[in-house]
């Protein structure tokens, strides 16, 4: 179980997140939603200990930063330089870097995990391709394969559904369900809004503070949207169940 207690983040005196407390149970698929600049990515980074923060993050009762092998992080695609000279295979192999240890080359087990993860996201045939020659959806699947190959218990994904094709979306939804059935915990940050959000077991609505934490139907109300967006609410935001937030 992931427990976040009173997590606060501030950058140069400006508060980005205020006293966030939440818990995620094993097998739960949780969506993290909110307007742009709400602090969704910052919350994920703070949970991982990648942003300076106050508060406590425990996984199964022990600080998460002491057991990083049990957590995997899928960064936003825009954070990566896709011209970097590396192949699909070597990106997925990065999942083994920590477990192999310094100076060790990947053995058969590492290769098996990498191969299986690539096969699961239907990218094994493209394993030797440079990442710069992939479509957005294929890039996202490579990162998902890297997360799978790490065999973690907690998955934190930053905007995995942004700019992808239908095939990738179907594969990801399928894999999320599979991981959830294996009692893995998933926190997925998303700026979507609409029926797609029903795929989650629970939604966290964020805008610097945690505004709602409940089943999708209970979170996706007009009242909550107004609280999250305030006066910046897009004018065409009249039918929340069919709207997508504009980035």
């Amino acid at each position: 179980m992931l427990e976040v207690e009173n997590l606060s983040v501030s950058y140069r005196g400006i508060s980005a997140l205020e006293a966030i407390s939440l818990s995620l149970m094993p097998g739960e698929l949780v969506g993290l939603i909110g307007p742009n600049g709400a602090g969704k990515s910052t919350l994920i980074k703070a949970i991982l200990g990648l942003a300076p923060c106050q508060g406590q993050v425990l996984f199964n009762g022990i600080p998460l930063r002491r057991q990083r092998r049990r957590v995997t992080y899928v960064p936003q695609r825009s954070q990566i330089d896709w011209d970097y000279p590396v192949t699909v295979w070597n990106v997925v192999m990065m999942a083994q870097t920590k477990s192999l240890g310094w100076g060790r080359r990947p053995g058969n087990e590492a290769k098996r995990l990498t191969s299986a993860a690539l096969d699961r996201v239907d990218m094994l045939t493209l394993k030797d391709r440079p990442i710069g020659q992939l479509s957005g959806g294929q890039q996202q699947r490579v990162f998902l394969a890297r997360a799978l190959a790490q065999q973690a218990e907690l998955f934190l994904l930053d905007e995995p559904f942004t700019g992808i094709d239908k095939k990738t979306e179907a594969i990801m939804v399928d894999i999320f369900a599979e991981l959830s059935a294996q009692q893995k915990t998933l926190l997925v940050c998303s700026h979507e809004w609409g029926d797609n959000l029903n795929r989650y077991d629970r939604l966290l609505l964020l805008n610097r503070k945690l505004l709602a934490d409940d089943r999708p139907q209970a979170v996706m109300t007009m009242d909550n949207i107004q609280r999250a967006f305030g006066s910046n609410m897009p004018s065409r935001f009249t039918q929340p169940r069919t709207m997508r937030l504009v980035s």
Partner: protein
Amino acid sequence: MDWLLDPLNYDFMRQALMAGVLIGVLCPVVGTFLIVQQMALLGDVVAHAVLPGLAIANFLQIPLLLGAFISGMISTFVTTWIQTQSKVKIDTAMAITFSSFFALGITLLTTLKSRLDLEELLFGDILGITVADVWQVGLITVAILIAVKFFYKELLFFTFDRLGAEASGLPVNAINLGLMTVITLAIVAGMKTVGVILVMALMISPAAAASLLTTELHWMMMIGSGLGVLSSLIGMYMSYFLNIPSGPAITLTLFVCFLLALLFSPSQGVLTSHFSMAKGQNSLD
């Protein structure tokens, strides 16, 4: 063939060529890490920032290499500090740091009445390379190549996706410090051969040319090193026969290599891709 062997009759030329080959192998390997992190100018920062260290080391009668190394490392810390403590972006932080350190270096060289030859430091001096210098460059090269080989997968992960690497538990601050150390050492090693200003060219140009010829990091290093050695040798011979300083001769050769890669790279060349498009057009017709 006599023209090829003739320079080898001189001790200074043999030493210069050996140092050139070593630097030609080393600098592109280190430069590759700078390029893939889009930090090519950091090499320039460190190269300029070694000057105050050289002046102080000369004044205190301690090894120049040590002074240059400490000074170069401080400049990387200052650059990072400015960037993290304010909204000033990395390129601005680098420009501020390198010009300030360079100015401080020149001021110190003047006020401490240093006997160091500024021109030699800036542009290199093949006549001045001693056997001890060659050994020093050799040791630095071997040590860095072994370290890069040993930590390759960690360096690959770190330079590709720093946040991902940190999230997975890799000690990113230590890796970054290691990289800065390696960059500073390579610059200090290249100082004698091509000078502090042009050592940057040896780090960046061959690796950049290699990046146009391959799609894998280790190949970028190996092809870069090949081009680095080739350019060093051609530049040294040009320096010998045409009586021009070695640093600029090597740098201009490197630029020609880069230009050739830019125009004729099989996959990404400006001319080759133009021709292949035209060919594709013809076959469609």
